């Protein structure tokens, strides 16, 4: 317990039993598929552009004469539901990838800490931007888009590093 920093080095994918490495590999692959599917879903509903995101939350085309689907503003209850379900489930995803990154021996401790902490910060920024976009100004969609893009890039980088480490161990 109290032997200090050297003990941290011994915890890596290389030193873990093979079944745990298999678990880590498949968990990462499944999370990759799940995260990519969620991005495809968001592309389908908003085209992944800030005006589309703002319309999704603030409403649009309600009085249009076309047959296009109506987009009503999200209610306060819906905003609460979206926030708590996404925040909690995404936090779990990044706990798993964070553990995976922490077990990567080839990355420096500084980069490990950055890659582990960054998604949690980006999550808070993203969901703050979502509320500001809904109730204050639609231009906060740009902040939401930027923080979500950084979040996605970090996730894919985390997965790449984990899978690379597991392939070599």
């Amino acid at each position, binding site marked *: 317990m109290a032997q200090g920093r050297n003990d941290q080095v011994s915890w890596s994918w290389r030193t873990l039993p093979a079944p745990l490495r298999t678990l880590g590999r498949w968990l990462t692959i499944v999370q990759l598929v799940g995260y990519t599917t969620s991005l495809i879903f968001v592309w389908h*509903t908003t085209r992944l552009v800030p005006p589309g995101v703002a319309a*999704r939350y603030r409403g649009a085309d*309600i*009085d249009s004469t076309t*047959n*296009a*689907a*109506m*987009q*009503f503003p999200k*209610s306060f*209850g*819906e905003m609460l*539901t979206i926030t708590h379900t996404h925040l909690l489930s995404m936090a779990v995803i990044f706990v798993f990838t964070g553990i995976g990154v922490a077990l990567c021996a080839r990355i420096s401790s500084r980069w490990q800490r950055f890659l582990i902490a960054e998604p949690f910060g980006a999550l808070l920024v993203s969901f703050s931007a979502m509320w500001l976009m809904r109730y204050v100004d639609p231009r906060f969609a740009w902040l939401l888009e930027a923080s979500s893009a950084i979040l996605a890039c970090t996730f894919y980088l985390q997965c790449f590093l984990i899978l690379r480490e597991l392939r070599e161990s």
Partner: protein
Amino acid sequence: MPLIALMLLQIGTAPPKVAASVTRIFGRGASATPLAVNADTALRVTRGDSLLGYAVVRNVKGKDQAITFLVAIDTADRLKDIDILVYREPYGGEVAYEAWRRQFRGKSAQDTLEVGRQIRSISGATISVNAVTLGVRRALQDLTTWHRDGMIK
């Protein structure tokens, strides 16, 4: 017989939520009296001695939960309005919004009420839109048939 129809018949008058909906649709002074029709229950809506129309309360299944709604017609069998009485799901509650409901007004049993053609869908509420639209179409057909066949007077 659906539970909701049994309840309406046993109470003898419309429950407060249904009564409030009837008042909103037909105006002040409108009152609803339950009528047994086959295995169902319709509501006869009157103000004093004058007949204003008919209504029916139904349930449809949304994604997981039942959606309770009311469909009202006038004496010419034109759809007067619909009302979502109870919406239980966390998502899709936009079907209760005026902007969506007003699309049904003036429709008759001859209208197809097809989502994407006569009725616009709602982004994020597709299942509820399809369920309620189908329910309204059936309720409108039933009310029209009952009225034309003299089963409700």
